[in-house]
Every structure is written in C-alpha cells, then in structure tokens.
C-alpha cells in the first residue's frame, strides 16, 4: 500500500514561517508578554483572580505601598473618616429623586416624548434612565458593610481609587475588557474586510464597482462621527456594542488590501490551473487563494487588535465606551483625569503602563510576524 511508505512530514510554509519567527528573539519576548496578558485575562474572566475588584479594600485614594500611607490619614481614624466621606458621597445621590420637585414632571415629559404610554411606565423609565442607580445602591450597601465589617488598608500594592478599590485588581479586570474588545472587534472587522475584499477582487466588474463606491462613501465620513452614528443606532451601552461599533467601522483597511491581493492572485497561473481542472468559483476563492493571502489577513488582524485596544480606551475616555459597572483601561483613564488634579497619579500610571506594555509588545510581534510570513525578505 503506497500510503504505508515511510515519509517524513514536510515543513509547510506555515511551519517554515514559525521557524523563522522562533529565531527572532524580539518576537519571542513580545509573544511571551502578549501570552502573559492573555493568560491573565482568561484567569480573571474565569473568576480566579481579581474577582473582588469592586471591593473597597483600602482607604479612599490609598497610595501605593512603596510610597507609604498618607500622612493625614493614618490609623483607625482614617478608616472611619474614609467611611464617612464614602457615606456622604453615597448619601448625595439618594436625595435626588426625593428632593427634586420637578422629578415627576420631568419623568412624565420624558415618557411622553419617548413613547406615549401610561404614566407608570413613564415613571419606571425615568428611573432606569439613570444608569448609576443600581451601582449606587450597590456601593451604598458595600459602604455600610465595609464600615461595620472590616478595617480598610492604608496602602494597596498599586494604590486605590476614589472608593478605595484596589488599582492592581482593577487593572487586571480592566485588561479583560480591553483585550476582549480589541480581539473581538478585530475579528469582526477582519472578517468583513476579507469577505468584501475577496468578493470585490475576485468577481470584479459591477460587484467591485459597488464595493468601491461603498468603501469610498464609508471612508469619506469622519471616523468619530461614524462611531457616534453607529452608537446612536445600536441604542445601548455594553461591551458587545463597542465590539460592533469598532468592527463595523474598522473593516475598510482590510478590504482594500485583500481586494488588491485577490486581484493579483486571480490572474496567477495556479488559479488558472484550478479553473482548468474544473474548480468552482467558491473553491478557487477560499480553498486556493485564501490560504495564499492569509498571511496578509493575519497581519491585519494583529494590527487591528492593537488599534482597537487603543480605540476602546479612547471611546471609554470620551464616555462612549463600556458601561460604568464595567471596568476597562479606558474607564480607568477617564476616572484618572479627575484624580490627577488631586495629585493621585497611580490609577493613570497603572492603566497607562499596562496598555503601553501590551500594545508595544503586540506591535513588535506584528512586525516580526510580517517579516516571518513574507517569503521575499528571507
């Protein structure tokens, strides 16, 4: 039986690229860093670490351990003081619905403008408009509990935020959001760009004209406006919303590249040869050409991931990002902008450093990946 003849498995082009990549020290170090981030993200996602990130483990604005505790807030007095400020802060919003004499009228107006329905529904809606309500209730509950149950630390490893939550744990939990959003949005955008690009480049003619027209119109709209528009259409805040916003707006670059690659490859002899043996269009597009342009796809996926991790941060910073009950590096930076005025720099430092390290490592890895996958540079 000829299948039984002894043979060694030949290295495929992928295997050869991997070999080149392995010889690249920078690539391996950056890959290790990225892997570390991903492992940590998975662990926190599974609830194994940083599960209690929302717990107020330290005093408000607890400084990093290395810096030592704040001079004016030491000892049990600080803990009590912290608790009172927390309570004061917590009390403030509770007064709002009660004391505002216009609240009912406002709710009614809101209800009327949105949808003419019963006043009960309108009132309910008026309440749910406030996204902070639940969180505030939560925080209030915790605040009182913490007050009674446990004394809070004066310092935390990387400091604490306004509520005394551990910045280290927030950073870890935040990576979960940021990396997931970056990866998932990059997958969506790359998928759209690849499918559109393949169809436009392969079939050409009117389909190509259509996609090019669509592409031109799409890229003519300022990016932020587009994001706001999609956000307005999708109506709700949430991680999946951000993934969709970034994915639906980010495919254009991939589309242009993949379209070009398909234009180039469809005239190649191996594709003509596939036509000659009777391979169908779909087979030629996806079985023959796609593996030969997949290195472009992979590099684009990698570049987009880096870009989207940054984009999520910017969106959250601007307030279009993740909901308030979710922590991400962007929301941390957003909080940090107020803290900086008080000289509390650690939240900014932690989130900024984590992002910079991951993005730098990912970019270096992308560069190395492109070199390894490009046979011409051999």
């Amino acid at each position, binding site marked *: 039986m000829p299948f039984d003849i002894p043979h060694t498995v030949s290295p495929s082009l992928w295997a050869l690229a991997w070999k080149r990549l392995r*010889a690249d020290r920078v690539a391996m170090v950056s890959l290790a860093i990225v892997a570390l981030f991903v492992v940590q993200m998975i662990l926190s996602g599974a609830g194994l670490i940083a599960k209690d990130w929302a717990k107020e483990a330290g005093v408000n604005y607890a400084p990093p351990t290395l810096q030592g505790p704040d001079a004016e807030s030491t000892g049990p007095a600080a803990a009590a003081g912290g608790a009172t400020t927390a309570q004061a802060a917590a009390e403030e919003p509770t007064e709002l619905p009660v004391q505002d004499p216009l609240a009912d009228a406002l709710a009614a107006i809101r209800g009327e403008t949105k949808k003419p329905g019963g006043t009960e529904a309108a009132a309910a809606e008026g309440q749910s408009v406030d996204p902070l309500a639940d969180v505030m209730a939560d925080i209030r509950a915790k605040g009182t509990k913490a007050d009674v149950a446990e004394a809070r630390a004066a310092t935390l490893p990387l400091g604490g935020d306004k509520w005394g939550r551990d910045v280290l744990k927030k950073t870890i939990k935040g990576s979960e959001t940021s990396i997931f959003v970056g990866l998932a949005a990059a997958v969506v955008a790359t998928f759209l760009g690849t499918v559109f690009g393949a169809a436009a480049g392969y079939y050409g003619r009117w389909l190509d004209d259509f996609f090019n027209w669509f592409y031109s119109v799409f890229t003519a709209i300022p990016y932020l406006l587009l994001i706001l528009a999609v956000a307005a259409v999708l109506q709700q805040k949430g991680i999946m919303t951000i993934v969709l916003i970034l994915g639906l707006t980010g495919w254009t670059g991939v589309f242009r590249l993949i379209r070009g690659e398909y234009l180039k490859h469809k005239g190649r002899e191996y594709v003509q*040869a596939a036509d000659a043996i009777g391979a*169908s269009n779909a087979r030629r597009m996806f079985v*023959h050409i796609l593996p030969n342009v997949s290195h472009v796809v992979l590099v684009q996926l990698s570049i987009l991931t880096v870009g989207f991790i940054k984009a999520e941060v910017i969106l959250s910073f601007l307030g279009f990002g993740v909901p308030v009950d979710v922590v991400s590096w962007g929301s941390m930076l957003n909080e940090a902008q107020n803290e900086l005025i008080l000289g509390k720099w650690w939240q900014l430092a932690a989130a900024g450093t984590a992002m910079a390290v991951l993005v730098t490592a990912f970019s270096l890895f992308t560069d190395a990946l492109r070199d390894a996958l490009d046979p011409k540079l051999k």
Partner: protein
Amino acid sequence: METLLSVRNLRVNFRLDEETTFEAVKGISFDIPKNSTVALVGESGSGKSVTSLSILGLLPKENSHVLPGSEIVYEGNNLVGLNQVELRKLRGADISMIFQEPMTSLNPVFTVGFQLSEVLRLHRDLSPAAAHKRAIALLEEVGIPDPAFKVNAYPSQMSGGQQQRVMIAMAIACEPKLLIADEPTTALDVTIQQQILDLIAELQRRHQMSVLFITHDLAVVGEIADYVVVMRNGEIREQGAAKRVFENPQDAYTKALLQCRPRLDRRPVRLPVIEDFMNGGGHAMNLAERKRGIALSDPIILDVRQLGKDFYSREGLFGQRKFEAVKNVSFKLPKGKTLGLVGESGSGKTTVGLTLMRLHEASAGEALFEGRDILSMSPREFMEYKRRIQIIFQNPYASLNPRMIVGQILTEPMQIHGIGGTAQERADLAFEMLQKVGLPEVSFYKYPHEFSGGQRQRIAIARCLTLKPDILICDESVSALDVSVQAQVLNLLQDLQDEFHLSYIFISHDLAVVKYISDQVMVMNQGEIIEIADSDAIYRNPREPYTKKLLSAIPKGWHHGA
C-alpha cells in the same frame, strides 16, 4: 594576447541560516583577454551570475561572503578587497553591466534621455547640454530610430527590444573596457534576440572592448564568443577557445549540453539527457530518426473554425477600445498528433490555448470536439469536456498552489470530477501518476517548494494526467526550464503521447523545440495564421516571408554549415 581581467581561485559562500552556508562558487579561475568575448555558460544554480556580480562587488552584503584567497585582478588591482567608493569609480566607467530584464532595469518615471545623461554626468563630468547631445548620439549608435525624438520617451513607450538597446547604450556610455552582459537576450523574442546579439558583437569590435557574456544557452554563445567557460554547480567543467569547445568538447557535461538541445536537422526518438553522458556514458540512447507528419486519414479530434477573441480596454469614462488578439483562426487537430503553435510575443498563440480551455470567453467561431461545439455549450455541459482538455502552463513555480502538498494537488481534480470512489482510490491513482512522470512516491507528502523547476513541471503534468485527458495544451511548458531539464520533460511528453495516444497543442516561441515535438506547425503573427504545414515541410521550404524571418533568427550554435 593581453589579459584585461583575471579571476583566480574565486570562492563565494552564501549564508542560508545561522548554521548552514552554501558554497555557490568553488574556487574558479579564468581570464578575460583584451578585445574579445568570453562566454560564461551554465544552467541555473551553476554560479555564473554570482561570479559576474562578484566582479562588480554587487553581491548582497548581508548574506554573501567572498572567501580570502580569492582574486579578481583588473589592471594590476585586486577588486576583491576594494571598498565601495573605489568600486563605484570602476562601475559604469571601466566595467559596466547589462541585465536580463530591461523592463525592470530602467526607471519608469524618468525619460531614457535623462537616465542616459545621468550616467554621463556622474562619470564624465559633462554639462547637461553636452550630456543630452551625447545621449542622442548613443541612442543612434545602438540603432534606435529617430533618436532625437526618442530621447524624450519614457521606458514604457518603447518595446522590449528597444529598452534593451537603451540599457546597452547606458552600459557603453562611458566607453567601458569590459561589458558584462547577464542573459541579455533571454527575455526577448527570437528575432529581437538576433538583433541584440548582432549589436553587442558589433559594438565589441568597434569599441575594442571585452565582453563577458553570461547565458544558459550554448546555441547563442556559438555566434559571438571567442572563448567559452562552462560552469556547473559552482565549478568550471571546461574552458577554451569557442571553436575547440564546440567541435571537440572534452567534458561529458559540455557534450551533454550540446546534445540535449533539439536540433533543426535531426529528430531522435528520444532526446539525449545529461545522465546519458555523466554516469559513465551508459549509451541507452535511441537516436534513430522519429517519423513526423500527419496523414489525411488521421481522425480529427478537435476542429477549430474561425476562432476570434477580442479584448476591450476602458478608455475615458465610457469609451472602450477593441483589441483583436485572435482573428479568424481555423485548424484541425488529429488524434494522437502534435500541433505546434509558434509566434513571437503578442502573436495571440497563448490566447488561442486559453480560449479553447474556456479560460477566456471566445468572441467568435466554434471549436468542434468530436463534432460538438465546446465554446457554445453551458458550463455544466462543458464540465465533461473540461476534463478531456487539459493545460500545462509555462511557469512551474507559479502554477502549483504553494500551500498544498503534492498529494492534494494531484487528488483535487479527481475529487472535483468524481474520478475514483474513495480517497484511497484517488491516492492510489495519484501514486500511479507520480510513477508515470518519474517522481518518487515520497513526493506525495511534499510541498511544491521542495522541488526543482523540472520536477514541478512533472507534477503539473501528473495533475493533468489524473483526469485522463484526450487533448493536452502545453503553453510554453518547457520554456522556463534549463536545457538539460527541457530535454527530460520533452522526452516525458513524448513517452506519454506514445503510451496514451494524447493529442498535443504545443505552444512555444522556441522553433527548435517545436520542430522536434510537432507533426504539424502553425505560425501565428498578430492574431492571424501566417502559415500551417507539416513540420518538416515548414522548416525546409517556408512559403511566407514572416516564417523565413523567424527561421533565420534561430541561433545556429557552432553548426553553421551542418
């Protein structure tokens, strides 16, 4: 005879990765005498181009290394140790070079006049006006018509032959003492090749310079070289005066190179291949004359009538320009015979092949395959005929999908056409085909990049054979191969025809190859049939002037009288 440049014990290493190095040139020595042409002949991988690049110091710095002890002596100086500044003074002025691809060697965004005067201003310190004047004179010298007008043309506005003439003009602009020509005619049509060879020979005489002519084609060398150096695998196999090497070759490899190429005056049943000469010369060659030609009684398998193919290019917003690539082509292909299709680039010969395969839609005419028109049938109906007409492309490096193993490449067509019930059956058939084309069974598990050009072409042939076709279109299928490999593939095609009774349409620009393999030859020019006749008849008594012109341009090697 005075020596202009001598190479002594030249050794060049290439670094492949961290541990392994590859010795591309293994200690070669030869001289280039003044006022003469030396031909450096070898197949791909012989180290001939590496040798010429090391003379100019143009080897890539990062992965190549000229070993100590190597000497390239030019006018008393060893060029090997020279730094870049000193080398740059020599390059272009004393030693200059022309490359294989004129299309990529000229900068497309500058006029040829600008590029010519740039060389002159760099090396000769001429004023812009004087340089411009000299550029026109140079263009005239290399035979460009209306040089005062053409000096302002961009490279894209010139034909391939004219571009190569401009490259030559640039190379001789500063009256070099040595001109290195690296495969200067390989990318050109036969008739243009002849003109460029004549031009180089004439310039060499007029300027009293020396020429180092690098080529894979011994036949070309015979016309212009005084001395011949034959290289293989980084070593010199034989060197000497051209007449001696051609008439009385000493080395087995030289003998093989001379014999492998099909000749116009003889047609052996099988072409001799390198192995026949190298391995102790086991003469199992069958050099008996093969009968060619067609008889009226031969059954016709494909009857092409008034085939036409137009291409349209967009012009302006709505305008279109029609270009007739194939006009009114009719021929009959007898079963089990070979129809040769010859012509220069742009003659439409490839378009005929692709249109018959329906890789292009035909604009007019019909092609009757056993009485049924395959050009007008629906794609579904055509599927069965698609199996029976197969094509082998020119470039074996491009026609195999680099991401598939050979096994996948061979079984895919059978899978599409439903040949062989199970994967195991198809694999068995694939193994059988590998054996047919002379490849080991292990090849099944390898990727195309692990094979040489000749082996890849065998894989492409095996892929076609898996479908058991009746007609095989060979589109320049052996043109990209080395002479010795070419002979092997031609023998394989011949054996397969003898065994399976295949009909070939053999498309090529190489008249000697077409003469060898064809029963009938069709000459095409600008989309039209010029002449169609039995292959012996067409070579002995060409009727049309164009055919005569093509035939007279074939390099004759050293066999001028024979």
